[in-house]
């Protein structure tokens, strides 16, 4: 009994210490973002950030790149994952292994490879659109796994046969039957990609594009309290995306003979 009490106290103490370690930096950042010099605390840092045109500009850029990344990734991954699950399970291994590759090649190395290989044309390499190529690859493991899991929960065989016997082609099948059935996986993968792209710093920094993360770093080097406010804002965006994704992942779509 006594031993149990000691164990429970130790457990509680440990959890408490951990909670402190994880909460203090967040609290520290929140308090710091309100600090207006001396013993004055107000929202001026937030006002300053929200009024900075650079904030809107970089955020819009990163958000746009995220949308492009999401659309392109889905256009590539959904047909491939669908087909592999339906017809060629032999290719499954290959795609699984390939999606791991971008962990072996970290962003800082990937960007080196991309700049070595692509020196032009200017309309591609010279614009932030170049980043999308890297972002698609970086987010591929996530999009591929999430969408693949979503597709696996469906009875693709039955769905395809039903749709085709009713006269639909591959395009209609994918767009009107498969896509609506993996809505939650699509939403999850989109939010994850959005969070990744909004937070991505390495590629943009090395390639000298002024994205949201690069802007946060710039503010961080120059202004203290606005940087804390900005980090908090970006953190909130990421966390909302992640939490929605966790929620969404809960209700998995099932159809027909649930397996």
């Amino acid at each position, binding site marked *: 009994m006594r031993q149990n009490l000691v164990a429970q106290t130790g457990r509680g103490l440990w959890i408490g210490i951990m909670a402190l370690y994880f909460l203090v930096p967040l609290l520290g950042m929140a308090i710091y973002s309100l600090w207006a010099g001396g013993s004055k605390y107000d929202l001026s840092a937030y006002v300053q950030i929200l009024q900075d045109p650079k904030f809107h500009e970089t955020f819009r850029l990163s958000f746009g790149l995220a949308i492009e990344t999401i659309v392109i990734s889905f256009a*590539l991954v959904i*047909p491939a994952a669908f087909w592999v699950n339906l017809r060629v399970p032999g*290719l499954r291994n290959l795609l699984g292994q390939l999606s791991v590759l971008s962990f072996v090649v970290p962003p*800082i190395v990937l960007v*080196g*490879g991309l700049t070595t290989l692509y020196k032009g044309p200017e309309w591609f390499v010279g614009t932030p659109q170049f980043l999308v190529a890297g972002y698609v690859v970086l987010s591929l493991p996530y999009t591929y796994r999430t969408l693949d899991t979503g597709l696996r929960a469906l009875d693709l065989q039955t769905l395809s046969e039903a749709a085709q016997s009713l006269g639909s082609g591959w395009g209609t099948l994918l767009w009107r039957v498969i896509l609506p059935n993996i809505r939650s996986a699509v939403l999850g993968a989109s939010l994850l990609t959005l969070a990744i792209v909004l*937070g991505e*710093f390495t590629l943009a920094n090395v390639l000298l594009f002024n994205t949201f993360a690069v802007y946060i770093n710039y503010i961080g080097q120059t202004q203290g309290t606005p940087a*804390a406010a900005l980090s908090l804002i970006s953190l909130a965006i990421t966390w909302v995306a992640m939490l929605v994704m966790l929620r969404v*992942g809960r209700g998995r779509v099932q159809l027909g003979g649930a397996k």
Partner: protein
Amino acid sequence: MERSADARPEPPASDLDAALSAQPAATAVVSTAETLSGVPRPRAAAPDWRGHLTTLLFVGPLLVVMLAFLIVPAFAVLVGAFRFDGVDGAAGGWTLQHIRDLAQPQYVTGLKNSIFLSGTSAIIGTVVGGLLAYAVLGEGGPAWLRAPLVAFSGVAANFAGVPLALAFVATLGTTGIVTRLLSVIGLDLNRSGFSLFNFSGLLVVYLYFQIPLMVILIAPALEGLRREWREAAENLGATAGQFWRHIGLPILAPSLLASAVLLFGNAFSAYATAYALTSGNLALLPLQIGAVLSGNVISDPHLGQALALLVIAVMALTMAIYSVLERAGSKWRK
């Protein structure tokens, strides 16, 4: 992620979800584990040319993009590490000079620092994260805290980079909240040898994403520790210590080691956090590559490629060890 909330055993697919919302490397795990148990489909494609053509149409674009923007660039780096450029457009040739250049003191220091920082943060992260996971998710842990811990870990493991660095600057930096609080009670952080902008600081910051990643990675293995094993051991008269020494830890060992290896790789390839904290001025391998790439140092781009080759080698080794250990560790989970 919902796994730990209810104790129902679920197929490995949900580990995957957990890992997916975690760090990059975490996903790797699952995909390897999963490809092994691929369920054969009842109907295979008829081996006619139309079937192959359709396959090409569906899978081809993805493969082309991966080739163009991942595989070929990676090879370009590997090859570039062994090339030198000719003068005035003349053809270059092959050389081992850049690999030899890696022996320069600053790069040896960079490698050593990177390994030291990643190793230390992996070991501490494994121990601390493992204990945290056990304290909450293990038998008798506070049930109400399980779901929040798993959700928080999923988010925090992703919370690296610039905002994380700035959060710590606001907390432990020169004018940070905790620094000021401590100085009020007469404690000078900077004089105690701690600085946010060198190793001790980076370690503290890295642990912020390493510990949650560990929680996510080890949760499935902890749940695989069956209550019956413990009861059987207790019925045979084993103490808690004996249970852990002879049963618990040996079963968990491969999973613990695998997670530690992954944590190492996770820290080893990190760039943004260290860059934001030190403005790229610390001798760490990823920062050195970045410096060469963005032209902050006068040097040969091939040298950057040689450095990148080193990183790829370390990461490939890490992933290989990881997948072997993971397979061994998943033996007890079914």
